[in-house]
């Protein structure tokens, strides 16, 4: 009505919607569009759109996959492997982050960061072969054990080797979010708990851990998603004896089994999302209790 209200947000000024569109546009085009397209394709393929078996359009691939107990065992062992890798990574990442937080000397800090991120600088292939050499029955680690009359322990071509190699490369992804939240928790909470009579362990359990838990959950989400979809490391260090969902999926792509690959891709994604969903729920619950 008034002159002010009637004056349009004219001239060069973009409307709110247009500005939002410009900001979100690139991300939308690069991430959301391909994702939706890929999901649509996967869905279609899983219904036998690219028929290679002559069974015709339908749920035949789904029933073939889900009807085989072997596949369920692979799904379950993939989840277990990813969960175990996640737990071990977090258990190592948490004290690592706590230690990094306390490093004051710049030089040592740089050294620590380089060491932490070094796995990411090496290609997955050479890294995995490096681990094979270290962990094989006659490798450096078993030779060292041998000096003490121990071993040799089987650490390659089984879950142990896969987990060791996964934890190694995933550690930095877990340290960063945990370190990030630790820097946001002021040391005064620790001091307050000590002043009220808490021991170091009680401070950790009742104050530090609850306050840093959101970072731990973010780290767990990242590590789980990365480790359940990893296939090079499980393939090389598992030597074909550790079968994971992602590995099966990869093989089916190689075999041009589009329908089966699509079903497995969807199952893999669903499994990962289900675990993320649970973790997110835990996060919410603790957030609510943390009353931000």
């Amino acid at each position, binding site marked *: 009505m008034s002159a002010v209200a009637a004056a349009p947000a004219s001239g060069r000024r973009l409307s709110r919607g247009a500005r939002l569109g410009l900001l979100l546009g690139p991300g939308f085009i690069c991430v959301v569009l391909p994702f939706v397209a890929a999901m649509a394709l996967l869905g279609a393929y899983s219904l036998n759109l690219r028929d290679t078996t002559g069974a015709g359009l339908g749920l035949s691939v789904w029933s073939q996959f889900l009807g085989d107990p072997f596949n369920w065992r692979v799904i379950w062992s993939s989840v277990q492997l990813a969960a175990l890798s996640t737990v071990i990574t977090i258990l190592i990442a948490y004290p690592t982050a706590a230690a990094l937080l306390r490093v004051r000397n710049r030089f040592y800090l740089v050294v620590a960061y380089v060491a932490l991120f070094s796995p990411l600088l090496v290609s997955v292939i050479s890294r995995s072969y490096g681990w094979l050499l270290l962990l094989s029955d006659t490798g450096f680690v078993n030779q060292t054990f041998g000096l003490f009359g121990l071993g040799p322990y089987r650490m390659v071509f089984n879950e142990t080797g896969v987990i060791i190699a996964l934890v190694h490369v995933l550690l930095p992804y877990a340290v960063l979010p945990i370190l990030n939240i630790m820097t946001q928790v002021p040391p005064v909470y620790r001091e307050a*708990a000590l*002043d*009220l009579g*808490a*021991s170091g362990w009680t401070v950790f359990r009742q104050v530090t851990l609850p306050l840093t838990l959101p970072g731990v959950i973010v780290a767990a989400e990242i590590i789980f998603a990365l480790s359940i979809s990893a296939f090079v490391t499980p393939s090389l260090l598992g030597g074909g004896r550790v079968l994971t969902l992602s590995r099966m999926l990869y093989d089916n792509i190689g075999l041009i089994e589009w329908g089966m690959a699509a079903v497995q891709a969807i199952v893999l994604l669903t499994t990962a999302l289900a675990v993320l969903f649970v973790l997110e729920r835990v996060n919410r619950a*603790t957030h609510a209790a943390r*009353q*931000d």
Partner: protein
Amino acid sequence: MADVVLKAVEKVFGSERVVKSIDLSVNQGEFFSLLGPSGCGKTTTLRMIAGLETPTSGDLLIRGERMNDVPINRRPTNLVFQKLALFPHLDVFDNIAFGLKLKGLPRPEIARRVDDMLDVVSLAGFERRRVTELSGGQQQRVAIARALVNAPAVLLLDEPLGALDLKLQLRLQRELKRIQRSTGTTFIYVTHNQAEALTLSDRLAVMNEGRVEQIGSPADMYLHSATSFVASFIGRTNLIAGEATFAGGEARVTDGALSVVLDDADAPADNGRTVLSLRPERIVIAPKTPMANGIDATVAEVEFLGATVLYRMRIADGRILFVQALADTPPLAEGTAVRLGWGKDAAVSIRSTTVAEDVE
């Protein structure tokens, strides 16, 4: 009986001597303040008493026991932090109960003591509130309750009202005093606010650059300031420095255009420089009867404070004298020429130290 004793306590951080040989003795049940400008070492001193810092040298005693090597979680003290540090993941009840639970008290006992404490800080009914939902003043009271519920021998408070608005500060000051009186707990209270320290304290120590300048009651501090720092930090004063000459039972200290006469007993007998503190309210404007001291001045600035008026009066050598008068007549206009006078007992002799900056 002394509750907290510091003997020649020092704290060095790196190459910086932050606390320089402090001697203090705080009595049981006393409201004792550490007052001083920002950065003078108050927090560091308090943290040493709490056990968050270890003295570099010297002895710290609480109830007669040496505490230097007793870890923080085994000291009979509790600290109210400057930034409160209420646990954000716990509600009001669990924050206050934190220390009691660690002591392993039975649940009903914990509930009873937390309830009592909520009454003391006027927060009954707030048990299940999230601490982040509380106002600044309420959070403040939770912080005090969380410390006080443990019945510490000594409660340490680090500028607990600093972040609040003035009105709330004044109200919580009265509450703090009431809580301190009703529980009989020894309070050691850190503040840079001289008005707050004067209002609350039974005794206080004024600190400056890591040293204690003077310890005494608020009135002592004001009326018998020991040093120029204390005189100018507590309230406002005119500092006069010069050589004293003695004649006929009188001493005369001359500083530029100012010449102050006082009883020779009140001026130090040594021949060095004498420093005097002359409080603004001891100076009389246009005295009706002749006074021992007098000087001509003109009004340079007028600050109307309500009950009183603060004048900045310029004297012959261009310097400013603060004069404070009751506002029982309309204030003098700027530029008015006046005669000022004061008695022989108005100026007190003090020790010269760094002068506190004029903080307003």
